[in-house]
């Protein structure tokens, strides 16, 4: 096992399922035998605020927070949030971005506009960025509520965990009766990231 800590930063907007995804990821990391820590701040998130969850794993993890510029992989559930997190990603970091824009009420005022093309800006920094239309993909599979799991599938291509472990943890976490469909969503995400 490498002594280096792996840092995965998950960002999005309250209600998108960021915390479910980071829960599953950190559980997978622990069950793979790593020391693992995960950190986020609850409270205001439910009210449409920014959500960011830090997942760190390796031989020994001290701080629960990823240092600035230290994220090896970014998983963004929302386009502008991917852009906001750019400075936290390592120079050689990878990114998976969900193609979804959530425009906050503040954009209706004079002071702020939603960024023109966040995906292009992220790609300029991270040429290998993987963009996934997770909602459309989930809709095609028959259930829109699997965005978190599909995005984890896309993320999984950048991490070194076995499919069996992912499957076990995901099945334990998703609502009963949706296990098979969620597993399909995970595999679809993995496939999209690989292509």
């Amino acid at each position, binding site marked *: 096992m490498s002594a280096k800590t792996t840092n995965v930063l998950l960002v999005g*907007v309250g209600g998108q399922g960021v915390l479910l995804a980071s*829960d599953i990821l*950190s*559980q997978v990391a*622990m069950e793979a035998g790593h*020391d*693992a*820590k*995960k*950190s*986020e*701040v*609850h*409270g*205001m*998130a*439910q*009210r*449409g*605020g*920014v959500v960011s969850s830090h997942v760190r794993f390796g031989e020994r*993890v*001290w*701080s*629960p*927070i*990823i*240092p*600035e*510029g*230290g994220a090896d992989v970014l998983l963004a559930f929302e386009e*502008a*949030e991917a*852009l*906001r997190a*750019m*400075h*936290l*990603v*390592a*120079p050689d*970091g990878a990114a998976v971005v969900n193609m979804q824009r959530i*425009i*906050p*009420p*503040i*954009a*209706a*005022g004079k002071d*702020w*506009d*939603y*960024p023109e093309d*966040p995906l292009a*800006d992220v790609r300029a*920094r991270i040429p290998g960025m993987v963009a996934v239309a997770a909602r459309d993909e989930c809709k095609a599979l028959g259930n829109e509520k699997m965005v978190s799991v599909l995005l984890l599938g896309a993320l999984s291509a950048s991490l070194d965990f076995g499919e069996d472990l992912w499957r076990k943890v995901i099945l334990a976490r998703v609502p009963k009766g949706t296990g098979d469909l969620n597993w399909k969503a995970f595999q679809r995400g993995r496939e999209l990231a690989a292509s």
Partner: protein
Amino acid sequence: MEASPRQETPLRYLLSGNEAVALGCREAGVHLGAGYPGTPSTEILETLARMVPEMYVQWSPNEKVGLEVAAGAAMTGARAISTQKHVGLNVAADPLMTLSYMGVEAGLVVVTADDPELHSSQNEQDNRHYARFAKIPMLEPSSSQEAKDYVAAGMEISERFDTPVLLRLTTRISHSKGIVEAGTARPVEVKGFRKDYKKYVMVPANARVRHAVVEERLEKLRAFAEETDLNRVEWGDRKLGVVAAGVGYVQARELLPGASYYKLGLGWPLPLEGIRRFAAEVERLIVIEELDPFIEEQLLAAGIACEGKAITGLLGELTPGRLGKGLAAAGLLADAPAPASEAATVLPRPPVLCPGCPHRSLFVSVKPKRGNIFGDIGCYTLAALPPLQTIDTCLDMGASISTAIGSSKVATDGKPIFAAIGDSTFLHSGMTGLLDAVYNDANITVLILDNRVTAMTGGQEHPATGKTLMGKAAKQVDLPTLVKAIGVEHVQVVRNHDQPAVKAALDAAIEHEGPSVVIARAPCALMPVKIRETPYRVDPAICVGCKTCLRTGCPALSLTGAMTAKGLRQVVIDEAACTGCSLCFQVCPHDAIRLASEEVPA
């Protein structure tokens, strides 16, 4: 029973600090837990209610009551825990200070969950001072594992030294998950109430004697601090020695892996002699602590040279970025961890009231009354932000009513004076303010925002919800009856979303001389059930782009790219987010908003 011959692998869980404290309660045989919800402490009692059914847990109307309930259990020889956020301990400070004199019969651990960086609080006070103020020992876990282990350690210290013990968490400890190895649950018997006049009746003659006991206890605790393995030295490079506790320790370990450490688990009283010996062995001594120079000042007072706040600063959370900059400036890090690129300027997402939130409907009616609106602590504080901007103050739990009274006694501008307070906050500490308003005949209008839940902290039960923390049916306090019993004569109950009724009630209340109460009643849009009624839709043939609906601040509304003839952008409703509260429909001056079920030409 025979001992099992095989070695059991301990169960390992990924737990938040709060969940770990709950597991620690189970393992330490804690019998009772009581508290009031408050970020970041809330999940401790919630986890206990869900996962430890054998333990009795309850929400109390406020933290003072919660701590007293826990103290009563401890006096009765049962291990007990009281939980609250940092500012909650201010409310519970009265019993805390004298509980220190009384001591305990069985273990009593008082959890304070501080919020450096004010993620969800009105200040970032450093509650370590309470340990010294109340002269009680304090434990400061650095990880989820320690959060669990320190409950049992705290109970043992509490019983051994006959004192309440402060367990100090911070947001980053409470809400970070880490691996916890479970231990075995140890049932502890309830000893029962033992009458002891001199110990439990704090009249001056007894308390005077107990003060001396407290000072003697402190000396014993100081000796204990020197020997306990809750504190430990970890030798590394002796060029640099670091004294740290809580989250400061892990942040320091991250950035200074090679240094020597004096790691404190017992954050107060400090092992000053141990630290003095440690200091003598290292070339340079630094203290890594969040917020106040609590450790640093004690070391300096003891004549132990060290640096601290000059490196870490006094404000906010000690993130790796912030700490790294301080360490680099002090020449302790070769290269400050620098971001790979500048932070992009992306539009902010200030938290907003949810779509369908009943508070929005109320404040849309209150705003045109041009009053001074004394606010309180809860989701409705968000109404202070644009575009609503209808709350003028936010001080502490219950302060809306009392500050409104004070203002009403001196104000000369003739504006109506409102106090806006939620149902849970009213029951927490608004009732006494209202009693004051009646007693001293204050000409104010109190708006009780009755959404029947403690919403801001995630939907906890309270005395008006009809359910306990453990899920049992409970007697439900009737707010109109309660308010009338306090002596308010002008009491009205309205439905928040009914704009004409709310406006009429506000006018009548303003008209009334003396205290009046408007109970604005509508369930929270999210809890206990997410409200989903027929959504509304904008008719693009009618919408003139006047933005009246947008000024309600509902996040389900946004501007489209579609332009009116006059070049104004039209509004669209996100039907998946719309709860069907009808506020936008009611405020639209052009009747451009209709139920989505009615056919609107696309």
